[in-house]
């Protein structure tokens, strides 16, 4: 089928299949899945400028479906989501400014690319070690699976910060936490997302669990709720620049909407540590794809 806006001819079933895969992963892990959908779209011939914008468009729809499903399951903390959006928006702008500064130095693609790899490997390794420790704790210490977290030191220190105003997050089971901690967490994830040019779901989800002490299921649902706004805003800005093929996005969304529902419901049947253990593989897949692209572009530059 021909998609005249992006100027490509692609089998719509392939697009729907990409959507389905990232839909399942997104619904289950609370991530946008751009680091998987992007390379798959690019391989099918979609020009790079359309890859990012079109991916954001389908991500918006998929996140609506997944967040609604998580909300039915009681996995969305709307208060936390709205507060984090404030920090995220400011952070994305800071990250974009850092990128501009690096561009002036030169070799921005290589610097950002290798920083991306380092962050992905760090998140993946940390989550893997922590979740294995948490699973062991469930067996040895007889801790309830839902509560088990193998690394709580930072969360405890963060929750001791009494910088006013203090707020409660009943949906996440947090009696009192500084508003500034939430906004700064959003700011950090937003800055990294803006710097790396990604949605940032794979940064926000672990950040919510390990820094704020949010239960894994609620972190996933809340992250998806936040992605609706960040990806929606990204869709508008990219579409105005002519970087979105809405027809490709609609086809991808067909598969993604169904996949997101399956992924979201599946979380209900896994404990937090098991979800985090499975999640830990995702950043490594992303890192491999980025390394491949970086080495490919280096080889291209040599030739």
């Amino acid at each position, binding site marked *: 089928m021909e998609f005249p806006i992006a100027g490509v001819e692609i089998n719509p079933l392939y697009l729907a299949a990409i959507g389905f895969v990232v839909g399942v992963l997104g619904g289950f892990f609370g991530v946008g899945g751009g680091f998987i959908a992007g390379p798959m779209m690019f391989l099918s011939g979609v020009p790079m400028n359309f890859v990012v914008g079109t991916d954001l468009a389908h991500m918006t729809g998929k996140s609506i479906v997944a967040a609604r499903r998580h909300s039915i399951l009681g996995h969305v903390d709307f208060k936390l989501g709205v507060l984090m959006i404030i920090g995220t928006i400011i952070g994305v702008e800071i990250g974009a400014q850092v990128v501009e500064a690096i561009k002036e130095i030169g070799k921005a693609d290589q610097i950002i690319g290798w920083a991306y790899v380092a962050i992905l490997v760090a998140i993946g390794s940390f989550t893997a070690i922590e979740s294995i420790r948490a699973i062991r704790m469930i067996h040895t210490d007889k801790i309830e699976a839902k509560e088990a977290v193998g690394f709580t030191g930072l969360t405890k220190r963060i929750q001791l910060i009494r910088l006013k105003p203090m707020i409660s997050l009943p949906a996440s089971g947090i009696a009192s936490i500084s508003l500034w901690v939430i906004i700064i967490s959003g700011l950090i994830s937003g800055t990294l997302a803006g710097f790396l040019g990604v949605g940032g779901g794979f940064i926000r989800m672990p950040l919510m669990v390990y820094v704020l002490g949010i239960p894994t299921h609620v972190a996933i649902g809340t992250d998806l709720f936040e992605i609706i706004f960040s990806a929606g805003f990204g*869709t508008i800005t990219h579409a105005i620049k*002519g970087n979105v093929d*809405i027809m490709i996005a609609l086809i991808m969304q067909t598969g993604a909407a169904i996949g997101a529902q*399956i992924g979201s419901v599946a979380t209900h049947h896994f404990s937090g540590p098991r979800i985090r253990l499975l999640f830990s593989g995702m950043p490594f897949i992303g890192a491999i794809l980025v390394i491949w692209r970086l080495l490919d572009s280096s080889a291209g530059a040599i030739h």
Partner: protein
Amino acid sequence: MNTKTIIKNLAIELVVYGILVTTYALLALRWLADPINALFHDNLLIYAFLGLVLIVAQAALLERLTTFLLERLGLPHSESE
């Protein structure tokens, strides 16, 4: 509610929702492809907002419609769990 029932209810809901989203995408491709292509070249601002509306409608409205249809047909759905 046991896992088997949850999976059965989800499967029914996904079949109805799947039919709706696929029909929506096919109708959009059949009737909107040319006007949207023209809009992309004429007015990117309207194109951007219309694009987002189409995506949000496919995601949110069709899910509401699915719930409504399942209720009317007396079939189980996620909100009744």
